[in-house]
């Protein structure tokens, strides 16, 4: 810099300096901005309040507890949903919203082999009296979920899951109202009627 006065208001000579010196560079001991200190004190207050709220007085569940609770609820709901039986599947077959969903899954996934009208193709027809793997609702659901690998029917448990497979079962049942009276595997409808 040249010899002119660079600025008119230099710091006071008695301004406090920090003790450390690095390569001849020294540091003023200035106050931090108050708003900055406020954020620091704010986080301290928050941490104490948080600690008291969650860990001393346990007013609200911690995130871990919330997660455990949600997982429990989800497991309970899944168990309830899995509780399919023949009766429940027949009830589903009468509910048009479920049947409509089942129809749309069927069209996307099953119709390629079993035909748009369940008339069969690569796969067996699903509207005749011949049910090679059982005609009870739960048997049909099991066939969808686990497949018949040796015949080319893939298992759909991983791809579709139980809910959608049950909806497809409901759709198939809705097209086969005659099964309600009890058709047996490959047999005539009368066999199991009491």
């Amino acid at each position: 810099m040249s010899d002119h006065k660079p600025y008119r208001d230099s710091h006071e000579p008695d301004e406090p300096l920090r003790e450390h010196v690095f390569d001849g560079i020294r540091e003023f001991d200035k106050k931090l901005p108050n708003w900055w200190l406020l954020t620091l004190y704010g986080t301290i207050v928050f941490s104490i309040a948080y600690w008291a709220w969650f860990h001393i007085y346990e007013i609200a569940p911690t995130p871990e507890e919330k997660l455990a609770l949600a997982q429990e609820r989800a497991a309970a709901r899944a168990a309830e949903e899995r509780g399919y039986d023949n009766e429940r599947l027949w009830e589903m077959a009468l509910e048009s919203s479920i049947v409509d969903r089942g129809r749309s899954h069927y069209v996307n996934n099953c119709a390629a082999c079993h035909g748009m009208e369940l008339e069969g193709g690569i796969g067996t027809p699903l509207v005749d009296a011949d049910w090679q793997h059982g005609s009870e609702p739960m048997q049909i659901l099991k066939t969808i979920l686990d497949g018949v690998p040796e015949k080319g029917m893939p298992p759909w448990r991983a791809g579709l899951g139980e809910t959608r497979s049950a909806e497809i079962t409901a759709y198939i049942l809705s097209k086969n109202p005659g099964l309600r009276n009890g058709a047996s595997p490959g047999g005539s409808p009368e066999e199991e009627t009491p």
Partner: protein
Amino acid sequence: MVNPNLDSVTTIRPDGSHRILHPSDAKGRFNTWRRAVFAILILIYVLLPWIPVRGAPAVFFNAAERKVHLFGHTLVFQDLWLGFFLITGLGFGLFYITALFGRVWCGWACPQTVWLEGVYRRIERWIEGDGPKRERLAAAPNTADKIFKRVLKHGLFILVSLFIAHVFISYFISLPRLYSMMRTSPLENWTAFLWVFTMSGIFYFNFAWFREQLCIVICPYGRLQSALIDDNSLVIGYDTARGEPRGKPGTAGAGDCVDCFRCVQVCPTGIDIRQGLQMECIGCSACIDACDDVMTKLKRPRGLIRYDSQNGLTGGKTKFLRPRTLVYTVMLLAGITVFSFALSSLEPFTATVHRMQGSPYYRQDGLVRNQFQMRLTNKSAEPASLTIEVSGGDHALTWNRGDGMLQLEGMEERVLPLFVSMSAAEFAGAFPLTIIFENPDNGHRVEKTVPFLGPDQPANPPTP
């Protein structure tokens, strides 16, 4: 009166309290240009969510569906890797601009500056008058006039803050949904309302009180300056050789600076640019306009304070071509090239083909059958029709999607089975099967190859 020095931050008093600045208005060519740029940028910020490009807003971060729409491109979660190029690209762009032009971003295009100088300070100036008047008002006792002015000013500040918060959230929530939310009870969408009101509060605090503290203390880009600029970067500087020693007009031996302090009065961060380049300087050019105005009145040439490099200010020449800018240019170009290439390689739809669970092949009625599952995702907001073609070289194949046409709604994902069969008698070993998906409307094409398997035919070598 602000009396800046190099050893302390003007806006932080020795006791740590915030010194509120009352910068005066600077009138001049840069100020006029800056106002025009602010108006254009504010228009862009506000309008981007309103301009539809290919069925989606020009820029829209769809929080509900975790999708990003960028000028007609739709990015879904699996395109997240592009963010790498976006972030590094923005970083390099900023480095490049900084190496060449210093903090031109801060002074001309940063939203903090755009909203503060373009809107809030204009409101303040309109209600309370220019710098010295505002300073007197701040020191005055609470009269009815002062309270009226303050209530009016802060009322308008809050309104603008609410407006900005709504503009901001319209980048994340679609406009029709935002509008319906605005007309229903806050309790129905309380998280969105909490967001908007928290953001409004932050904007109000920032633009009404915090202001330059964000640039001086919080913004990391400001702190990177010293590493990014060199003696050839364009900064705002004072021509010491020409200005010093300061003196009233007519004083013998005096330089051009008359020590009028206009440059200090107009500075929004409270520095004296004549003390040299400082970290508080956001390159706003107000001091240039202020000084040019004084110099014109004194019939002296403009540019005592000007955009120039440190070299230029000390009488040297500014070198634009230097290793730093060359390296940045190469890296920026490489980044832009890779990003454009990556963006253009994004498929408007994706397709995967997997073999179904179960046996690798089936024999039925003299045929060999392979079963696959196709997962098709339409990544554009518009419906797409696809043709599906299966090709296996010379092999005569049949497959279940004979018509081959498929309609996908905008953003739809569909999982479909694909069964390919051929005569078992003609099967002579595994061969690659190509499944071609094509959108006849735009010619976009995706090919997937999977092997067609069948019973071993040890007597016949596999066809190539």
